[in-house]
């Protein structure tokens, strides 16, 4: 009797609601509420679908955009790179043929795939979300169970709206207390990864909570969940609350009117129960988290801003070869303080930190200053629909006056 009464985590509740059936090999067939597509990992999947003579089963559950190959400097078509152009054409053709909504260039909604999901209100609590991109964990900020998949799995979702999946363990990560000024979500997640390791999350979904996480706005929570994968966890999520609802209310694809009230009730019930059992619980003190700098070649090689590069002997033996490689690559000495190392390139953006709030924060610090001579500074926005919105604070023109280069030449996002 006690067993049935035991509470459940959000992950477990969502899993149960989406488990279609057990597969012969012991995995589960999991229904995917929302499937997001982009041009890099989807053309092969549509090709496989064609080879098998299959159609997209529920096109109303798939949304596509183009992000990785979009040139930043000149978006006139055809692009300078004919291969990039052909990838865009392929996505246009595939989405048209299968009746999938496509946020194309110029639609005002095109942008980094896991940023537009939340901004358009496609991402909602309790949903299972899949996309051919490891940073799909970002959507977990909304209490969704979201994860990156490979191209063969993109095919599976297109054809059946389901995946063969294995249930993960859940690790609750509490961050209690108040973050010091100048400490942001990215410092928090780097701190967590530094302590749990880049492989620490293997086999786990990370549930973030505690007073410091509850106090975070949605964009900070997205940063936190985005980088779960850098800590080895395929899924990271935060239980939905009033902050989540305030963000979603009124977004184009969010429920409206009575449906909105009903949705909120449903979402609140999905929160992990207070007595839910976890496979592991780890607690961090917010006050102990300093602005964090990664000094090497993996996200686990992080130190507080007042720290120093570690000596090899201080590291666990298995981390030493990678640390040695990092020291050589970066040209650092063991024991060297990180403070005082000159900045050569400032990159403001990427799929972890390219939201309007991030750019505002940078603008606040830049006000009245110019980028130092010899420093290369770049910023790039995550979604083209902002055109005009951040203008008052960080328009491309005023940024250029400060020596900031808008956009990035290569890709506006980490590749999937």
């Amino acid at each position, binding site marked *: 009797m006690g067993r049935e009464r035991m509470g459940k985590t959000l992950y477990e509740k969502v899993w149960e609601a*989406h488990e*279609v059936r057990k597969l012969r090999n*012991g995995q589960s067939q999991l229904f995917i509420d929302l499937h997001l597509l982009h041009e890099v990992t989807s053309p*092969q999947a549509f090709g496989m679908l064609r080879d098998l003579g299959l159609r997209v089963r529920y096109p*109303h559950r798939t949304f596509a955009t183009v992000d990785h190959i979009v040139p930043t400097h000149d978006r006139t078509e055809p692009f300078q790179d004919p291969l990039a152009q052909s990838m865009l054409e392929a996505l246009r053709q595939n989405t048209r043929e299968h009746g999938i909504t496509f946020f194309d260039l110029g639609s005002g909604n095109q942008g980094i795939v896991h940023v537009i999901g939340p901004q358009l209100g496609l991402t909602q609590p309790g949903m299972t979300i899949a996309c051919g991109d490891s940073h799909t964990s970002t959507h977990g900020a909304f209490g969704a169970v979201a994860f990156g*998949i*490979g191209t063969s799995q993109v095919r599976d979702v297109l054809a059946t709206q389901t995946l063969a999946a294995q249930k993960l363990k859940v690790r609750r990560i509490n961050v209690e207390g108040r973050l010091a000024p100048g400490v942001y979500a990215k410092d928090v997640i780097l701190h967590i990864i530094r302590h749990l390791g880049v492989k620490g999350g293997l086999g786990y979904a990370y549930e973030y909570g505690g007073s410091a996480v509850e106090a975070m706005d949605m964009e900070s929570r997205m940063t936190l969940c985005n980088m779960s994968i850098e800590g080895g966890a395929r899924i990271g999520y935060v239980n939905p609350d009033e902050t989540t609802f305030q963000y979603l209310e009124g977004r184009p*694809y969010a429920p409206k009117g009575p449906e909105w009230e009903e949705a909120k009730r449903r979402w609140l019930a999905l929160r992990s129960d207070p007595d839910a059992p976890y496979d592991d619980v780890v607690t961090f003190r917010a006050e102990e988290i300093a602005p964090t700098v990664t000094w090497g070649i993996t996200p686990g090689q992080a130190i507080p801003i007042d720290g120093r590069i570690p000596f090899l002997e201080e590291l666990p033996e298995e981390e030493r070869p990678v640390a040695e490689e990092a020291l050589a690559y970066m040209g650092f000495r063991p024991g060297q303080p990180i403070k005082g190392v000159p900045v050569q390139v400032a990159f403001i953006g990427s799929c972890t930190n390219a939201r309007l709030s991030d750019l505002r924060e940078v603008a606040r610090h830049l006000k009245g200053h110019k980028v130092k001579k010899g420093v290369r500074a770049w910023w790039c926005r995550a979604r083209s629909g902002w055109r005009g919105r951040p203008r008052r604070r960080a328009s491309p023109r005023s940024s250029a006056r400060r020596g900031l280069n808008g956009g990035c030449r290569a890709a506006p996002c980490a590749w999937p």
Partner: protein
Amino acid sequence: MLEKFTVIRGRAVPLRGEDIDTDRIIPARFMKALTFEGLGQYLFYDERFDEKGNPKPHPLNDPRYRGATILLVESGFGSGSSREHAPQAIKRAGFKAIIGESFAEIFFGNATAIGLPCVSLAPEDLAVLFRAVEENPELEVEIDLVQKEVRFGDRVAPLFLREEAREALVEGLWDPIGELLEAGELLDAFDQKLPYPRRAE
């Protein structure tokens, strides 16, 4: 009918390095393509070739290991991105299996789903295997997914592989599409029951 993987035999190529990420396996610029065909030639491209395209010293360029079909790696192999291009490049370069200490989650799933078994050995056994292959590139290595062991020389080492992945490989069920499609009308019930995003009028 999908291939059933029971025993995989071949010579191995030792590739040392912890946490080798997918961008090293297949650099992002080679993903600008509409198919996976031809990806094999770009496997570890930036580590195998310099800027002018001349070969650099690398186990995959080493003539002693030419024709090897088993890739030997250390821990955390395949971290970073979700790109299936990484296991696709390995498979298309002629590899039939990977032996390592541990694999990144998404990489492992992607590799299994395209019929590229990734098996783990205990660190001591892996170290012995690395040394054995480095000393004798002709050494034949046997991965036995039924007996759950890796055999080489006179050594037998237990292999570790998630049971559901092992069964899928042995039973020829590693590509789940057929079984997923069988759910048929059951899927419609889920589609009707579960909400999806709709744009308000």
